[in-house]
Each structure stands twice: as C-alpha cells, then as structure tokens.
C-alpha cells in the first residue's frame, strides 16, 4: 500500500489516512501524496523558527552564568518535571506538568497549570499581596496574614470561656513555610511595617546567604491592605502569581528551583 509521510513527525502513514497515527497531526488526504512530503514539513518547521518578535527563556544557573535557552516559538510551551518541552526531571519541587508559556494577543503569559508549588515572579515595584499570597526572599518562603479583628471573649455552647495567653494586639503575622509544608516561625507584628533582611531588621535571617542586609519590607495601610516592597536587594523578591501573569522582557520567573529569565526579542 502506497504510504505518505506525516508532515509533522515524518512517520509513514497509509495513504487514505487523514491523521497521523503517531502524532495525531493532520495529514493531507490527497489521493496522490507527492514524494515531496518531508521537504514540506522541513520547510514549515524552519519557517516557524523565523517568526520575529518571539520570546525565549534562559535558565539562570548562578552568578552570571546562563544555562539552557528555550525558544518560545509555538503557541504552548509546557514546563514540568515529566511533561512538556521545558523539562527539569531532577527538580522535585516541580509538578509533573507545572506551567505553560503561551501567547495571548501576541503577548507572552505564564500560566500556572495547577502546580503544587506555583509560579513566582520577581517584583519590580511595590506589590499588593492578596491574602495568603506566598513570596520568596532568598531561601525563605513567607506569607503574611492580617490579624483578624478581636471579637473579645466568646463563650462556647456550654457558656465556658476559652483561656488564652494575654491579648497583645497585632496587625499582622509573618509566617515562614518550611520545605514539606510545616510552619517554622511566626513573627507577630504590632506595627504596620515589618522589615526583612539579614541583620538590623524586624525579622532577620542570619544564615540565609541569598538575603541582602536590608532586603524587603511589608507595610499595611489603614484599610488592612498589605504591600510588599523590595529594598534594592541583590537577588530580588518573588511573589507567587495567581493563575497567570503577563511577562515582559527582563522578567524573572521561579518554577520550583529553576530561575528563568524572560527575553523578548
């Protein structure tokens, strides 16, 4: 039976098939497939590579050294531990399918594909933290929780009051999340501001080599909204995105342990 070649993957498929049995790509159903099938596929692939204005991701390996670069020339570019084109099989902090880089109206976006650990973006300006938003400072994974209003003592159904430690009003709590999900420390702030760094701040992480002396600060306004500001730190401050976020040239994205730089050409 005379076959033809799938233009997408090059597999030989029966002449009357409309779809490639190997990759599912559409195959020209013309009765007489020309022998020039493979060259067509090659041409198309080559052409795709030349689309201007597309972006690439560069893996940052360490100080000043770049790793692999991924060209983002298609429409979907899935990143994960076991699934997709951008693979980091050795990173246990990545979900099997972790994130997707897509174009929306010709603009690159990163989409969290329901990953366990999420996608973090380096902030470039003071950023409003929505409730429960996680952020990364050096190796510290942190979270701010505004203190609930004090309702005063409330008896239980039997009329018994709960004994608790003395009330010391606080505005918010800074919570440290350890690897594995356990809470490490909770810092309870009475002020509307918490400064974070390696030394001389409200909260200091002396042993974290990736934290600057004065790294970031958290402020709460009169409405209880919490803003995170990077104080010109060396390694930056990263906030977990919700669902998806647009990406610009020079943005940094953390997926698991992978730091990626976005370059839009």
């Amino acid at each position, binding site marked *: 039976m005379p076959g033809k070649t799938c233009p997408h993957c090059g597999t030989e498929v029966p002449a009357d098939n409309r779809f490639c049995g190997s990759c599912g790509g559409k195959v020209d159903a013309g009765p007489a497939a020309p022998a020039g099938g493979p060259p067509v596929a090659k041409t198309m692939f080559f052409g795709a590579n030349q689309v201007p204005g597309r972006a690439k991701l560069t893996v940052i390996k360490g100080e000043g050294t770049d790793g692999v670069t991924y060209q983002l020339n298609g429409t979907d570019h899935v990143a994960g*531990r076991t699934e997709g084109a951008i693979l980091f099989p050795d990173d*246990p*902090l*990545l*979900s*099997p399918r972790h994130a997707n880089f897509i174009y929306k109206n010709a603009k690159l976006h990163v989409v969290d594909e329901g*990953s*366990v*650990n999420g996608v973090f973006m380096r902030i470039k300006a003071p950023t409003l933290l929505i409730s429960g938003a996680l952020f990364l400072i050096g*190796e*510290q*994974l942190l979270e701010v929780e505004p203190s*609930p209003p004090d309702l*005063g*003592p*409330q*008896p*239980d*159904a*039997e*009329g*018994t*009051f*709960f*004994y*608790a*430690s*003395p*009330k*010391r*009003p*606080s505005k918010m*709590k800074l919570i*440290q*999340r*350890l*690897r*594995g*999900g*356990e*809470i*490490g*420390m*909770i*810092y*309870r702030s009475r002020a509307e501001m918490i400064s974070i760094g390696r030394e001389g701040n409200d909260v200091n992480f002396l*042993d974290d080599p990736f934290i600057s002396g004065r790294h970031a600060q958290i402020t709460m306004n009169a409405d209880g909204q919490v803003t995170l500001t990077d104080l010109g730190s060396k390694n930056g401050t990263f906030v977990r995105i919700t669902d998806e976020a647009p990406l610009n040239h020079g943005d940094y994205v953390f997926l*698991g342990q992978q730091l990626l730089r976005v370059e839009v050409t």
Partner: protein
Amino acid sequence: MTTCKSCGKENQDHYKFCLGCGGELARPASVGATPSPVATGPSAMEIARTVLPPAPVTATGELQAEANRLAPKPKGGIPWGDSPKMPPVMANFQLPPNPLAGGTGAGMRIPTSPTGTPALEPVAQPPAAAPLGGTACPTCGKPIQPGFAFCGSCGTRLAKAPSGAAAPLGVQKTMYGAGLAPAPAPVAAPRGRLVLIRPDGTEGGTHPLHDGETLIGRGQGALFEADAYLSPRHAEFTAASNGLTVRDLRSLNGVFLKIGTDEALESGDIFRLGQELLRFEVISAPQPLEDGTEIMGTPNPGFWGRLSVIVGRDVDGSAFPLFGDAIVLGRERGDILFPEDGYVSGTHARISLVEGQVILSDLGSSNGTFLRLRHERTIPNGSFILMGQQLFRVEFR
C-alpha cells in the same frame, strides 16, 4: 494595655501596679456604682481575671509581692470598692448571658451536690475570724458584713440563715451544709480534698474527694461556681486506696498539672508558663506527595519542633522554632522571652531534645510550669492542679 505614667511601661489592663516601677497605675474613670444586671462578656471576663488572676502564684519567690498587690483587698467593708472596674460583689456571679443555653444562668447557683454530700467540707477556722455579732464565710473564713448574701472575700454565696445574718459561725456552717443535703446521712470521712490556693498564696476553701469519683465542674460546688473558665463537666477525680487519678472530661480549657522536674512532651502538648498558653509540636521531615512533588519552602535549618503561643480558640500568635540541644524560656534570659508576662520567671523552663525524646523541665520558676493532661493521670499527694482560673493543691491519704 495601660501605660505607666511614671516609667512608660505597658502593663496588662488588670494590673494595679506597674510591673516596671511598682507605681500605682491610673484606673479608668469610674463607670458608676450600679452594675448592669446582665454583665457583658468582656466585663465578666474582667471580673474573672481580676478576682482570680489567671496565673497562680504559689506564695514563694520573687512574685510574692506582686501577687500580694494584685490580690483583691477588702477595703471599707466593701471588697474591691477601690477598683472602679469592679461592680459590687453581687455581680461576681453574673456570668455573661448565653444565648445558646437559656437556662444556664440558673445553673450558676449553688447546686445540690450530686452525691448528696455537703459540697463544702468544714474548714478549721480560727474563731477570731468571725467578728462579734457577724458571721464567717464557710469557704474562706473571712468575716462577713451583716446582710451580705455573698462572701466579700472569696465570693461564695451564703445560705440564708433563718435567724438572720447574726447566726453564729457554727450554725452558719451547718445551715449551709444542710441546705445542700436536707437529710445528711453520716458520710465517711473524705479520702482527700482539693485546697484552693488563692492568688496571694494563702489557702482558700476546700472541696472533698470521697472514695470513688468526684465530678468537678462549674456548678459542682461553691469553689467552682464563679469560674467561667470551667466547663460544667470539667474533670473527674477518682480516689482509691492505691492513689488518686484525675481525668479531663474533654473540658474546653483542660486540667493542668504542675510538673516536677522533667516531663516528656508529645507533639500537640499544651502547657502554661505564667499567663502564656503554649503548644509544642514536632516538625517532621518533609514527605513527597503522591506524584513525587515535594512542597517547597525554606530549607529546614535543623528545626525539630515549634512552640506556638495560643491567643484564642484555634488562633495562634507567635511561633518559635526549636532547634539545637535545648531552648530556654524566660522573661529576661533565654532563647524565647516573654518580657511582658510578670508571672514568668527570669529563667523559667527548658525544652530539650535528649536522645530523640523532647523534655520539658521547670528551672525552679516561682510560679511553676503546668502541663495539660492528655487523658488521665495518677497524681501524687501534694500535686498542684490548675483548672479554669484556679489553682488547687491535692491532698489525700
């Protein structure tokens, strides 16, 4: 918080004297002598806290003077009259209205003892305690103003003696007991008793522990009537010839035992240090999820446990990681400090990791370290037990 005008230190609202300089703290303007017949929640809380400061003081050591200052002192015949926060003593038994249990208010009255035995054991009192023509409180022995229905010192409700308030001491006691058990049968001498330790370290009333079970709860005896931090069924003491066992009846606030020296801690254990209610938890090694993903976070620098300050029901305040061989808790010295809690000693307790076992040790603190009982426990004679807002010494033979 009340800020001291002399030295600027912030003090708990119920403090009368500054912890920093000892100066008298300014009180809010008096709200008038007429209390609302239905006390609001917070004010009742104030009452409970003021009458019975939550942290027991065992009459020894550095906090004795502080405790003495904090202890309510009768003045001018009307106890606590110098404190504008305190409504007249009658209001001590006004608990906040409880919409969920309409009839609970009645339950706050002195109930009949379920065992039919007098709820109060006669306490040996120096005869001088009763002034001529007056009566003495059957619970604490303090003299009672004629016409008063409650003891001004400890707040015990007094039985109405038919002969009036001038009934002699012995009659008063008898009437009180008879009111609880109209036909008191001769009962065996109790095997033991709970002795209330008042905030100034003196002994208050006692509660008998007979053979078998004794239920302790709000409404189960005069000592427990006014304590809004006791559950109606709080604890059960079982006395037998081979010892005394105390069991927490899943009470809201638990039963706390003053620890001797070392006590093994389990994850989830709760203990009291001064006024601080703390929970210990083990920090376990990270486990990957089913799909092989590990939850990201700060690399654990060697934390093996965490100590959380409980600030409300299901609400935690600060949390301190535990690492290294030992962490010392104190007011002034140590790794975890509670500088604002005057009931915490300078160096109070230690949590250490010894061969995989976590040990809580009291470091000779003035007020002790109290561990919440997990289930039940057989306790030695002379143990100190914290239930609700009150401290008791357990005596039995």
